[in-house]
Protein backbone atom coordinates (compact mmCIF):
# COMPACT_ATOMS: atom_id res chain seq x y z
CA UNK A 1 0.00 0.00 0.00
CA UNK A 2 2.18 2.86 1.36
CA UNK A 3 1.33 5.62 -1.15
CA UNK A 4 -2.40 5.06 -0.75
CA UNK A 5 -2.39 5.26 3.04
CA UNK A 6 -3.15 8.26 5.25
CA UNK A 7 0.03 7.50 7.21
CA UNK A 8 2.16 8.29 4.16
CA UNK A 9 0.66 11.72 3.70
CA UNK A 10 0.09 12.74 7.32
CA UNK A 11 3.18 11.31 9.02
CA UNK A 12 5.71 11.64 6.25
CA UNK A 13 5.03 13.56 3.06
CA UNK A 14 3.39 16.78 4.23
CA UNK A 15 5.54 17.36 7.37
CA UNK A 16 8.75 16.44 5.54
CA UNK A 17 8.01 18.62 2.51
CA UNK A 18 7.12 21.62 4.71
CA UNK A 19 10.10 21.18 7.06
CA UNK A 20 12.45 20.70 4.11
CA UNK A 21 11.52 24.15 2.80
CA UNK A 22 11.67 25.86 6.20
CA UNK A 23 15.10 24.73 7.43
CA UNK A 24 18.39 26.26 6.28
CA UNK A 25 19.98 24.61 3.21
CA UNK A 26 22.68 22.78 5.19
CA UNK A 27 19.99 20.99 7.20
CA UNK A 28 17.84 19.98 4.22
CA UNK A 29 19.64 16.67 3.54
CA UNK A 30 19.18 15.77 7.19
CA UNK A 31 15.42 16.29 6.86
CA UNK A 32 15.46 13.78 3.96
CA UNK A 33 17.55 11.36 6.04
CA UNK A 34 15.42 11.61 9.20
CA UNK A 35 12.12 11.19 7.38
CA UNK A 36 13.54 8.58 4.97
CA UNK A 37 14.84 6.42 7.80
CA UNK A 38 11.57 6.80 9.76
CA UNK A 39 9.60 5.95 6.61
CA UNK A 40 11.67 2.81 6.01
CA UNK A 41 11.35 1.62 9.61
CA UNK A 42 7.63 2.48 9.91
CA UNK A 43 6.51 0.76 6.72
CA UNK A 44 8.86 -2.20 7.26
CA UNK A 45 7.31 -2.76 10.69
CA UNK A 46 3.73 -2.27 9.57
CA UNK A 47 3.71 -3.72 6.06
CA UNK A 48 6.76 -5.71 4.94
CA UNK A 49 9.51 -7.53 6.73
CA UNK A 50 8.58 -6.69 10.34
CA UNK A 51 11.41 -6.11 12.84
CA UNK A 52 13.99 -7.87 10.65
CA UNK A 53 12.89 -5.74 7.73
CA UNK A 54 13.23 -2.57 9.80
CA UNK A 55 16.71 -3.66 10.91
CA UNK A 56 17.73 -3.54 7.25
CA UNK A 57 18.15 0.21 7.71
CA UNK A 58 21.74 -0.76 8.50
CA UNK A 59 22.16 -1.55 4.78
CA UNK A 60 21.71 2.17 4.05
CA UNK A 61 24.10 3.19 6.84
CA UNK A 62 26.70 0.67 5.67
CA UNK A 63 26.32 1.74 2.04
CA UNK A 64 26.78 5.41 2.94
CA UNK A 65 29.92 4.72 4.99
CA UNK A 66 31.39 2.31 2.45
CA UNK A 67 30.70 4.60 -0.50
CA UNK A 68 32.84 7.34 1.10
CA UNK A 69 35.88 5.28 0.12
CA UNK A 70 34.94 5.13 -3.58
CA UNK A 71 37.43 6.76 -5.92
CA UNK A 72 37.83 6.81 -9.69
CA UNK A 73 39.21 3.46 -10.84
CA UNK A 74 39.25 2.10 -7.28
CA UNK A 75 38.76 -1.59 -6.57
CA UNK A 76 36.46 -0.61 -3.69
CA UNK A 77 33.84 0.55 -6.21
CA UNK A 78 33.80 -2.97 -7.64
CA UNK A 79 33.59 -4.42 -4.12
CA UNK A 80 30.65 -2.06 -3.50
CA UNK A 81 28.87 -3.34 -6.62
CA UNK A 82 29.54 -6.96 -5.61
CA UNK A 83 28.23 -6.53 -2.07
CA UNK A 84 25.08 -4.82 -3.39
CA UNK A 85 24.44 -7.73 -5.75
CA UNK A 86 25.05 -10.17 -2.88
CA UNK A 87 22.46 -8.34 -0.71
CA UNK A 88 19.96 -8.63 -3.55
CA UNK A 89 20.70 -12.30 -4.21
CA UNK A 90 20.37 -13.22 -0.53
CA UNK A 91 17.07 -11.45 0.05
CA UNK A 92 15.40 -11.86 -3.32
CA UNK A 93 16.80 -14.95 -5.01
CA UNK A 94 18.00 -17.26 -2.23
CA UNK A 95 15.05 -19.64 -2.28
CA UNK A 96 14.71 -19.39 -6.06
CA UNK A 97 18.34 -20.30 -6.74
CA UNK A 98 18.63 -23.01 -4.08
CA UNK A 99 15.26 -24.32 -5.30
CA UNK A 100 16.66 -24.66 -8.84
CA UNK A 101 19.47 -26.77 -7.39
CA UNK A 102 17.60 -28.84 -4.80
CA UNK A 103 13.95 -28.74 -5.85
CA UNK A 104 10.91 -28.28 -3.61
CA UNK A 105 11.31 -26.65 -0.15
CA UNK A 106 10.95 -30.00 1.67
CA UNK A 107 13.97 -31.35 -0.24
CA UNK A 108 15.98 -28.13 -0.07
CA UNK A 109 18.38 -28.11 2.90
CA UNK A 110 19.11 -24.41 2.29
CA UNK A 111 15.47 -23.30 2.13
CA UNK A 112 14.95 -20.06 4.07
CA UNK A 113 11.47 -20.33 5.57
CA UNK A 114 11.50 -16.83 7.02
CA UNK A 115 12.63 -15.11 3.82
CA UNK A 116 11.48 -11.50 3.43
CA UNK A 117 12.16 -8.66 1.04
CA UNK A 118 13.48 -5.48 2.65
CA UNK A 119 11.37 -2.51 1.56
CA UNK A 120 12.43 -1.25 -1.88
CA UNK A 121 15.52 -3.48 -2.14
CA UNK A 122 15.10 -4.01 -5.88
CA UNK A 123 15.14 -0.27 -6.45
CA UNK A 124 17.70 1.00 -3.99
CA UNK A 125 20.21 -1.58 -5.25
CA UNK A 126 19.96 0.08 -8.69
CA UNK A 127 20.93 3.39 -7.12
CA UNK A 128 23.78 1.83 -5.12
CA UNK A 129 25.17 0.19 -8.28
CA UNK A 130 24.74 3.36 -10.33
CA UNK A 131 26.71 5.39 -7.78
CA UNK A 132 29.51 2.81 -7.47
CA UNK A 133 29.87 2.50 -11.27
CA UNK A 134 29.79 6.23 -11.85
CA UNK A 135 32.33 6.88 -9.08
CA UNK A 136 34.51 4.17 -10.65
CA UNK A 137 34.20 5.88 -14.04
CA UNK A 138 34.66 9.28 -12.44
CA UNK A 139 31.43 10.59 -13.92
CA UNK A 140 29.85 11.78 -10.68
CA UNK A 141 31.00 13.92 -7.79
CA UNK A 142 31.18 12.16 -4.40
CA UNK A 143 29.01 14.71 -2.60
CA UNK A 144 28.92 14.94 1.18
CA UNK A 145 28.04 12.08 3.54
CA UNK A 146 24.66 13.66 4.25
CA UNK A 147 23.94 14.32 0.58
CA UNK A 148 24.55 10.73 -0.50
CA UNK A 149 22.52 9.41 2.42
CA UNK A 150 19.70 11.81 1.49
CA UNK A 151 19.90 10.45 -2.07
CA UNK A 152 19.46 6.81 -1.07
CA UNK A 153 16.94 7.55 1.70
CA UNK A 154 14.79 9.99 -0.29
CA UNK A 155 11.50 8.32 0.58
CA UNK A 156 9.23 9.38 -2.33
CA UNK A 157 11.35 7.24 -4.68
CA UNK A 158 12.73 4.69 -2.22
CA UNK A 159 10.23 1.87 -2.62
CA UNK A 160 9.57 1.59 -6.35
CA UNK A 161 11.40 4.40 -8.11
CA UNK A 162 11.62 6.24 -10.43
CA UNK A 163 15.30 5.24 -10.32
CA UNK A 164 17.24 8.45 -9.76
CA UNK A 165 20.73 9.48 -10.81
CA UNK A 166 23.02 11.16 -8.34
CA UNK A 167 24.24 13.67 -10.94
CA UNK A 168 20.76 15.09 -11.35
CA UNK A 169 19.61 14.64 -7.76
CA UNK A 170 22.53 16.52 -6.17
CA UNK A 171 21.94 19.90 -7.86
CA UNK A 172 18.25 19.55 -7.07
CA UNK A 173 19.06 18.84 -3.40
CA UNK A 174 21.53 21.71 -3.14
CA UNK A 175 19.28 24.21 -4.85
CA UNK A 176 15.67 23.06 -4.70
CA UNK A 177 13.01 25.16 -6.39
CA UNK A 178 11.84 28.04 -4.21
CA UNK A 179 8.51 28.39 -5.99
CA UNK A 180 6.27 27.02 -3.27
CA UNK A 181 2.96 27.78 -4.94
CA UNK A 182 3.81 26.38 -8.38
CA UNK A 183 5.48 23.28 -6.98
CA UNK A 184 2.61 22.47 -4.64
CA UNK A 185 0.02 23.07 -7.36
CA UNK A 186 1.83 20.74 -9.77
CA UNK A 187 2.80 18.24 -7.08
CA UNK A 188 -0.67 17.96 -5.57
CA UNK A 189 -2.27 17.67 -9.02
CA UNK A 190 0.13 14.85 -9.91
CA UNK A 191 -0.59 13.05 -6.63
CA UNK A 192 -4.37 13.37 -7.01
CA UNK A 193 -4.24 12.13 -10.61
CA UNK A 194 -2.06 9.21 -9.47
CA UNK A 195 -4.45 8.24 -6.69
CA UNK A 196 -7.47 8.54 -9.02
CA UNK A 197 -5.74 6.33 -11.64
CA UNK A 198 -4.96 3.74 -8.97
CA UNK A 199 -8.39 3.65 -7.34
CA UNK A 200 -10.70 4.27 -10.29
CA UNK A 201 -8.92 2.36 -13.05
CA UNK A 202 -6.18 0.00 -11.83
CA UNK A 203 -8.10 -1.40 -8.87
CA UNK A 204 -11.28 -1.68 -10.95
CA UNK A 205 -9.46 -4.09 -13.27
CA UNK A 206 -8.89 -6.45 -10.35
CA UNK A 207 -12.41 -7.80 -10.91
CA UNK A 208 -11.12 -9.28 -14.19
CA UNK A 209 -7.51 -10.04 -13.29
CA UNK A 210 -8.51 -12.08 -10.22
CA UNK A 211 -9.61 -14.77 -12.67
CA UNK A 212 -6.10 -15.29 -14.00
CA UNK A 213 -5.65 -18.59 -12.14
CA UNK A 214 -5.69 -22.20 -13.28
CA UNK A 215 -9.16 -23.07 -12.00
CA UNK A 216 -10.91 -20.08 -13.56
CA UNK A 217 -9.00 -20.38 -16.84
CA UNK A 218 -10.07 -24.05 -17.11
CA UNK A 219 -13.76 -23.14 -16.63
CA UNK A 220 -13.83 -19.94 -18.70
CA UNK A 221 -15.13 -19.58 -22.21
CA UNK A 222 -12.34 -18.95 -24.67
CA UNK A 223 -13.46 -15.46 -25.71
CA UNK A 224 -13.17 -14.22 -22.12
CA UNK A 225 -9.46 -15.03 -21.83
CA UNK A 226 -8.09 -12.13 -23.95
CA UNK A 227 -10.32 -9.74 -22.00
CA UNK A 228 -8.80 -10.88 -18.71
CA UNK A 229 -5.29 -10.52 -20.09
CA UNK A 230 -6.05 -7.12 -21.57
CA UNK A 231 -7.42 -6.07 -18.18
CA UNK A 232 -4.08 -7.01 -16.64
CA UNK A 233 -2.30 -4.90 -19.26
CA UNK A 234 -4.49 -1.95 -18.32
CA UNK A 235 -4.10 -2.63 -14.60
CA UNK A 236 -0.32 -2.82 -14.56
CA UNK A 237 0.06 0.34 -16.62
CA UNK A 238 -2.33 2.39 -14.51
CA UNK A 239 -1.05 0.89 -11.27
CA UNK A 240 2.63 1.55 -11.88
CA UNK A 241 2.18 4.87 -13.66
CA UNK A 242 -0.07 5.95 -10.76
CA UNK A 243 2.68 4.96 -8.34
CA UNK A 244 5.20 6.95 -10.37
CA UNK A 245 2.84 9.95 -10.51
CA UNK A 246 2.58 9.95 -6.71
CA UNK A 247 6.36 9.61 -6.32
CA UNK A 248 7.09 12.40 -8.80
CA UNK A 249 4.37 14.61 -7.30
CA UNK A 250 5.70 13.95 -3.78
CA UNK A 251 9.22 14.96 -4.81
CA UNK A 252 7.79 18.11 -6.38
CA UNK A 253 6.40 19.16 -2.99
CA UNK A 254 10.02 19.29 -1.81
CA UNK A 255 10.84 21.46 -4.85
CA UNK A 256 12.70 18.59 -6.49
CA UNK A 257 12.26 16.92 -9.85
CA UNK A 258 12.84 13.19 -10.31
CA UNK A 259 12.88 11.31 -13.63
CA UNK A 260 9.69 10.51 -15.50
CA UNK A 261 8.79 6.82 -15.77
CA UNK A 262 6.05 6.60 -18.39
CA UNK A 263 5.25 8.49 -21.58
CA UNK A 264 2.26 6.90 -23.28
CA UNK A 265 3.94 3.54 -23.88
CA UNK A 266 0.82 1.85 -25.24
CA UNK A 267 0.59 4.47 -27.99
CA UNK A 268 3.90 3.37 -29.51
CA UNK A 269 4.20 1.67 -32.86
CA UNK A 270 7.14 -0.65 -32.24
CA UNK A 271 8.64 -2.57 -29.34
CA UNK A 272 11.83 -0.45 -29.19
CA UNK A 273 9.73 2.70 -28.85
CA UNK A 274 7.57 0.95 -26.27
CA UNK A 275 10.61 0.28 -24.08
CA UNK A 276 11.81 3.86 -24.42
CA UNK A 277 8.53 5.00 -22.89
CA UNK A 278 7.67 2.20 -20.43
CA UNK A 279 9.44 2.31 -17.05
CA UNK A 280 11.84 4.85 -18.55
CA UNK A 281 14.16 5.06 -15.56
CA UNK A 282 14.68 1.26 -15.62
CA UNK A 283 15.17 1.28 -19.39
CA UNK A 284 17.86 3.94 -19.11
CA UNK A 285 19.53 2.11 -16.22
CA UNK A 286 19.63 -1.13 -18.20
CA UNK A 287 20.97 0.75 -21.20
CA UNK A 288 23.77 2.48 -19.28
CA UNK A 289 24.80 -0.30 -16.91
CA UNK A 290 24.04 -3.52 -18.82
CA UNK A 291 23.45 -3.12 -22.56
CA UNK A 292 26.22 -0.63 -23.39
CA UNK A 293 28.88 -2.32 -21.21
CA UNK A 294 28.03 -5.58 -23.02
CA UNK A 295 28.91 -3.85 -26.28
CA UNK A 296 25.52 -2.28 -27.05
CA UNK A 297 24.63 -2.02 -30.71
CA UNK A 298 28.16 -1.27 -31.86
CA UNK A 299 29.03 -4.94 -32.38
CA UNK A 300 28.40 -7.46 -35.10
CA UNK A 301 24.65 -8.12 -35.62
CA UNK A 302 24.53 -11.55 -33.92
CA UNK A 303 26.30 -10.15 -30.85
CA UNK A 304 23.84 -7.22 -30.69
CA UNK A 305 20.96 -9.70 -30.61
CA UNK A 306 22.69 -11.63 -27.82
CA UNK A 307 23.20 -8.35 -25.91
CA UNK A 308 19.51 -7.56 -26.28
CA UNK A 309 18.44 -11.00 -25.08
CA UNK A 310 20.85 -10.90 -22.14
CA UNK A 311 19.74 -7.42 -21.09
CA UNK A 312 16.08 -8.35 -21.20
CA UNK A 313 16.78 -11.66 -19.46
CA UNK A 314 18.28 -9.68 -16.56
CA UNK A 315 15.33 -7.29 -16.69
CA UNK A 316 12.96 -10.24 -16.38
CA UNK A 317 14.93 -11.82 -13.56
CA UNK A 318 15.03 -8.50 -11.72
CA UNK A 319 11.23 -8.28 -11.87
CA UNK A 320 10.85 -11.45 -9.86
CA UNK A 321 12.49 -14.62 -8.68
CA UNK A 322 10.58 -16.97 -10.94
CA UNK A 323 10.94 -18.69 -14.27
CA UNK A 324 7.84 -16.89 -15.56
CA UNK A 325 9.67 -13.53 -15.21
CA UNK A 326 12.67 -14.98 -17.04
CA UNK A 327 10.40 -16.04 -19.91
CA UNK A 328 8.74 -12.60 -19.89
CA UNK A 329 12.14 -10.92 -20.16
CA UNK A 330 13.24 -13.26 -22.95
CA UNK A 331 9.96 -12.67 -24.80
CA UNK A 332 10.69 -8.93 -24.84
CA UNK A 333 14.32 -9.61 -25.76
CA UNK A 334 13.10 -11.70 -28.68
CA UNK A 335 10.66 -8.99 -29.78
CA UNK A 336 13.42 -6.37 -29.65
CA UNK A 337 15.76 -8.65 -31.59
CA UNK A 338 13.11 -9.34 -34.26
CA UNK A 339 12.32 -5.64 -34.51
CA UNK A 340 16.00 -4.80 -34.86
CA UNK A 341 16.55 -7.44 -37.54
CA UNK A 342 13.42 -6.26 -39.40
CA UNK A 343 14.50 -2.61 -39.25
CA UNK A 344 17.96 -3.49 -40.61
CA UNK A 345 16.49 -5.60 -43.39
CA UNK A 346 13.90 -2.97 -44.38
CA UNK A 347 16.39 -0.08 -44.31
CA UNK A 348 15.53 3.57 -43.99
CA UNK A 349 12.09 4.62 -45.18
CA UNK A 350 11.81 7.06 -48.05
CA UNK A 351 8.14 7.87 -47.56
CA UNK A 352 6.15 8.54 -44.40
CA UNK A 353 4.15 5.50 -43.27
CA UNK A 354 0.54 5.17 -44.32
CA UNK A 355 -2.32 5.35 -41.82
CA UNK A 356 -2.98 1.64 -42.26
CA UNK A 357 0.71 0.90 -41.68
CA UNK A 358 0.75 2.95 -38.47
CA UNK A 359 -2.40 1.29 -37.15
CA UNK A 360 -1.06 -2.18 -38.00
CA UNK A 361 2.30 -1.42 -36.32
CA UNK A 362 0.53 -0.11 -33.24
CA UNK A 363 -1.78 -3.15 -33.07
CA UNK A 364 1.11 -5.62 -33.40
CA UNK A 365 3.08 -3.83 -30.68
CA UNK A 366 0.10 -3.59 -28.35
CA UNK A 367 -0.91 -7.22 -28.81
CA UNK A 368 2.59 -8.66 -28.41
CA UNK A 369 3.23 -6.60 -25.26
CA UNK A 370 -0.10 -7.69 -23.80
CA UNK A 371 0.53 -11.31 -24.71
CA UNK A 372 3.76 -11.09 -22.73
CA UNK A 373 1.86 -10.04 -19.59
CA UNK A 374 0.63 -13.64 -19.35
CA UNK A 375 4.11 -14.61 -18.13
CA UNK A 376 4.27 -11.61 -15.85
CA UNK A 377 1.07 -12.17 -13.91
CA UNK A 378 0.93 -15.98 -13.77
CA UNK A 379 3.45 -18.66 -12.89
CA UNK A 380 4.90 -20.60 -15.80
CA UNK A 381 2.54 -23.65 -15.77
CA UNK A 382 -0.54 -21.40 -15.43
CA UNK A 383 0.66 -19.03 -18.17
CA UNK A 384 1.36 -21.98 -20.48
CA UNK A 385 -2.10 -23.38 -19.76
CA UNK A 386 -3.63 -19.95 -20.40
CA UNK A 387 -1.90 -19.59 -23.78
CA UNK A 388 -2.80 -23.17 -24.73
CA UNK A 389 -6.45 -22.49 -24.01
CA UNK A 390 -6.29 -19.11 -25.74
CA UNK A 391 -4.80 -20.40 -28.97
CA UNK A 392 -5.75 -24.07 -29.10
CA UNK A 393 -9.04 -24.02 -27.21
Amino acid at each position, binding site marked *: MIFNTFAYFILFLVPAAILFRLVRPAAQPWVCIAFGASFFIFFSLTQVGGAFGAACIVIFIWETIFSRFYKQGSLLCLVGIAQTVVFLIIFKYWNFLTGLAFGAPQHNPFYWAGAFLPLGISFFTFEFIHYAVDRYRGTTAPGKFSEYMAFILFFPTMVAGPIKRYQTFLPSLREPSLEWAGDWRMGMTRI*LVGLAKKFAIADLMTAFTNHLNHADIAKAQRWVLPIWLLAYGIKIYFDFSAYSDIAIGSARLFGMKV*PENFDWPYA*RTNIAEFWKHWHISLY*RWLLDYVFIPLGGSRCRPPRVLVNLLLTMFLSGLWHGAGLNFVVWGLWHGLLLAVHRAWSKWRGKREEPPSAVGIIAAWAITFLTVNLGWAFFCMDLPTASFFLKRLFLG
Partner: protein
Amino acid sequence: MNEVQQPNPELEPDVASPPPSTPETRRSLFDISKISAGLCWIKHFFDYLSASREEPPPGADFLASPLWLGVWWGLMIGLILLFCGQTSKFIYIDF
Protein backbone atom coordinates in the same frame (compact mmCIF):
# COMPACT_ATOMS: atom_id res chain seq x y z
CA MET B 1 17.61 -0.85 -27.59
CA ASN B 2 19.71 1.77 -29.23
CA GLU B 3 22.02 3.92 -27.17
CA VAL B 4 22.04 6.68 -29.76
CA GLN B 5 18.37 7.43 -29.36
CA GLN B 6 17.80 8.26 -25.72
CA PRO B 7 14.25 8.58 -24.39
CA ASN B 8 13.35 12.16 -23.77
CA PRO B 9 12.90 12.73 -20.04
CA GLU B 10 11.25 16.08 -20.58
CA LEU B 11 8.34 14.40 -22.33
CA GLU B 12 8.74 16.19 -25.58
CA PRO B 13 6.06 15.13 -28.03
CA ASP B 14 8.20 12.53 -29.74
CA VAL B 15 5.32 10.35 -30.91
CA ALA B 16 3.83 13.28 -31.88
CA SER B 17 6.09 15.25 -34.08
CA PRO B 18 3.95 15.40 -37.18
CA PRO B 19 5.61 14.28 -40.40
CA PRO B 20 5.89 16.98 -43.05
CA SER B 21 2.87 17.34 -45.24
CA THR B 22 4.08 15.81 -48.47
CA PRO B 23 2.11 15.24 -51.66
CA GLU B 24 2.04 11.51 -50.84
CA THR B 25 0.25 12.09 -47.54
CA ARG B 26 -2.17 14.57 -49.06
CA ARG B 27 -3.25 12.03 -51.62
CA SER B 28 -4.10 9.41 -49.02
CA LEU B 29 -7.53 8.92 -47.55
CA PHE B 30 -6.34 10.21 -44.16
CA ASP B 31 -4.11 13.27 -43.80
CA ILE B 32 -1.43 11.82 -41.51
CA SER B 33 0.06 15.17 -40.65
CA LYS B 34 -3.29 16.54 -39.46
CA ILE B 35 -4.06 13.39 -37.50
CA SER B 36 -0.60 13.47 -35.90
CA ALA B 37 -0.97 17.12 -34.97
CA GLY B 38 -4.38 16.38 -33.43
CA LEU B 39 -3.02 13.44 -31.45
CA CYS B 40 -0.09 15.58 -30.36
CA TRP B 41 -2.48 18.22 -29.03
CA ILE B 42 -4.55 15.60 -27.19
CA LYS B 43 -1.40 14.16 -25.60
CA HIS B 44 -0.28 17.63 -24.53
CA PHE B 45 -3.76 18.27 -23.10
CA PHE B 46 -3.75 15.12 -20.96
CA ASP B 47 -0.10 15.59 -19.97
CA TYR B 48 -0.98 19.05 -18.68
CA LEU B 49 -4.05 17.76 -16.85
CA SER B 50 -1.89 15.15 -15.12
CA ALA B 51 0.78 17.77 -14.28
CA SER B 52 3.40 16.10 -16.47
CA ARG B 53 3.80 19.36 -18.36
CA GLU B 54 4.13 22.88 -17.10
CA GLU B 55 2.25 24.72 -19.86
CA PRO B 56 -1.25 24.05 -21.25
CA PRO B 57 -1.59 23.22 -24.96
CA PRO B 58 -2.24 26.03 -27.44
CA GLY B 59 -5.82 27.23 -27.28
CA ALA B 60 -6.49 25.70 -23.84
CA ASP B 61 -5.21 28.48 -21.58
CA PHE B 62 -8.36 28.20 -19.47
CA LEU B 63 -6.82 25.04 -17.98
CA ALA B 64 -4.33 27.23 -16.11
CA SER B 65 -7.06 29.16 -14.25
CA PRO B 66 -7.61 28.58 -10.51
CA LEU B 67 -11.29 27.87 -11.20
CA TRP B 68 -10.44 25.01 -13.55
CA LEU B 69 -7.83 23.71 -11.12
CA GLY B 70 -10.50 23.62 -8.38
CA VAL B 71 -12.90 21.75 -10.66
CA TRP B 72 -10.19 19.28 -11.68
CA TRP B 73 -9.06 18.63 -8.10
CA GLY B 74 -12.70 18.22 -7.09
CA LEU B 75 -13.21 15.66 -9.85
CA MET B 76 -10.10 13.72 -8.83
CA ILE B 77 -11.05 13.78 -5.14
CA GLY B 78 -14.55 12.63 -6.07
CA LEU B 79 -13.15 9.68 -8.04
CA ILE B 80 -10.80 8.78 -5.19
CA LEU B 81 -13.63 8.84 -2.63
CA LEU B 82 -15.92 6.89 -4.93
CA PHE B 83 -13.49 4.04 -5.56
CA CYS B 84 -11.17 3.97 -2.55
CA GLY B 85 -12.99 1.14 -0.75
CA GLN B 86 -11.65 -1.53 -3.11
CA THR B 87 -8.00 -0.53 -2.88
CA SER B 88 -5.24 -3.06 -3.34
CA LYS B 89 -1.46 -3.08 -3.01
CA PHE B 90 0.65 -1.41 -5.69
CA ILE B 91 2.05 -4.19 -7.88
CA TYR B 92 5.66 -2.96 -7.97
CA ILE B 93 6.01 -2.78 -4.18
CA ASP B 94 6.63 -6.53 -4.15
CA PHE B 95 9.43 -6.34 -6.72
